[in-house]
């Protein structure tokens, strides 16, 4: 049975910091760094925002755009590498907050930046098999780069939620195909108990990001028997602005195709939220018949690729009841590094 998206929602914190300001503190030309990475500013969560609040806001935004009864939701999966609790699920709080509890299953996922898309695939299986009517897949993060590290210029916060159902529902987008490419590649990790992640520097590029994203994207197009020009929108994982552009070129896409799904230059890398927010951004402006290719990448490493077709329903759901990704991108307030350090818990406080 065909599965797809019934509704969607997104959330981006309102605070931003610019690379120049980060560089100022570390004696680096941050502006040049930002240009090189193609990241102009990144979102920063307030002290009272975390993956749980972002997930809840995105899920509520999603519920605003649908008539679906929350009690018909059979599963909620939240993918993140920054769950506020190491043990105790984010997903149960989301379930209570959208009043889907208690008759459902829930779990938290972690697979670096692709835990959200793993949640989509799980959801497809559960609804497609008829086990449940709806399943919710969320990708959200409030990731941190170590102070002074290159990642500090990009690690951002945000998330998106998708309500997944079958063709029996009014799908706004049908998922035609999905394909995953997974290997054991240690390009980026965070050990238990560590506050900041570590990475393999340039090793994160060719053998990790590019190999997985391009292989997954190309294989999916073979499965779908499609050509690059068949897609109206392409959303690739975006650790910075540079990588997806280059991977896109390697697969034969133009920057025009990437345009609506590439948010990192304006909000930074939202990790598990990244392609999910890109998809939400595309759905905000999508028209019936639009074909979408989405490829997520998670370090460690793997890529989940999706081929979607937007249906007529996209114009029937009340998209305006939620907040558009563009509105959230444009509504921001800048902070300095000292405030950023305070908000992100980088100042050592008295116990």
């Amino acid at each position, binding site marked *: 049975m065909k599965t797809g998206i019934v509704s969607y929602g997104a959330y981006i914190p*309102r605070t931003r910091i610019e690379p120049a300001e980060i560089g100022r503190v570390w004696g680096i030309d941050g502006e040049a760094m930002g240009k090189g990475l193609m990241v102009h500013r990144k979102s920063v969560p307030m002290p*009272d*925002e975390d993956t*749980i*609040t972002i997930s809840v*806001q995105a899920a509520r935004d999603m519920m605003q755009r649908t008539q679906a009864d929350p009690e018909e939701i059979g599963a909620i999966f939240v993918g993140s590498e920054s769950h506020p609790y190491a043990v105790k699920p984010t997903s149960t*709080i989301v379930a*209570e*907050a959208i009043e889907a509890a208690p008759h459902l299953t829930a779990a938290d996922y972690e697979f670096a930046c692709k835990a959200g898309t793993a949640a989509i695939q799980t959801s497809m299986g559960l609804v497609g098999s008829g086990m449940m009517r709806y399943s919710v897949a969320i990708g959200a993060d409030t990731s941190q780069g170590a102070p002074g590290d290159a990642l500090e210029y990009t690690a951002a916060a945000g998330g998106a939620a998708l309500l997944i159902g079958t063709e029996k529902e009014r799908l706004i987008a049908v998922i035609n195909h999905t394909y995953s490419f997974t290997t054991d590649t240690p390009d980026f990790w965070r050990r238990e108990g560590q506050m900041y992640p570590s990475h393999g520097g340039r090793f994160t590029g060719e053998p990790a990001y590019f190999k997985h994203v391009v292989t997954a994207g190309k294989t999916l197009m073979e499965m779908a028997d499609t050509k690059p020009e068949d897609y109206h929108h392409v959303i690739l994982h975006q650790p910075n602005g540079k990588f997806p552009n280059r991977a896109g070129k390697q697969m034969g896409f133009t920057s025009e195709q990437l345009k609506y799904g590439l948010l990192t230059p304006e909000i930074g890398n939202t990790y598990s939220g990244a392609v999910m927010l890109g998809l939400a951004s595309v759905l905000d402006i999508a028209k019936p018949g639009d074909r979408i290719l989405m490829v997520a990448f998670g370090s460690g490493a793997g890529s989940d690729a999706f081929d979607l077709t937007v249906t007529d329903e996209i114009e029937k759901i009340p998209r305006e009841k939620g907040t558009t990704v563009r509105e959230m991108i444009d509504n921001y307030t800048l902070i300095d590094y000292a405030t950023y350090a305070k908000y992100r*818990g980088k100042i050592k406080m008295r116990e």
Partner: protein
Amino acid sequence: MGSIPRFWRENPSRYNLVGVKCDNCGRVFFPPRDICPVCHRESIGKMKRLELSGKGSVYSYTLVQDAHPQFEMLKPYILAMVEMDEGVKITSQIIDVKPEDVHIGMKVEAVMRKLGAEGNSGILHYGYKFRPVKE
């Protein structure tokens, strides 16, 4: 460790603004009460669950500069009394706005935020705060 059940049992109202409406007089109360303070005996068994819309307007507000230690990171923050569209008033913070842009009568809506944490290893508390509504 802390007061886990004390916070946990209020989650429905903190997460989803669950209040009650007295079917006898139509008044709305938040948080829920078992007896209507106006109708007394007449209201017994007639207090019906009512989820507030989350929309309201600022009735009064202040910028808190001297706060409890658990709010240290948010200081200074805006605290407000919000008059909900259903008529009840609620106290919480206003977020995502500059203090100078807040005014009495400003339209706001509820969002979920972290309210606090029990130290570095205890339970996290979540609940409503308010943000301005696009006008």
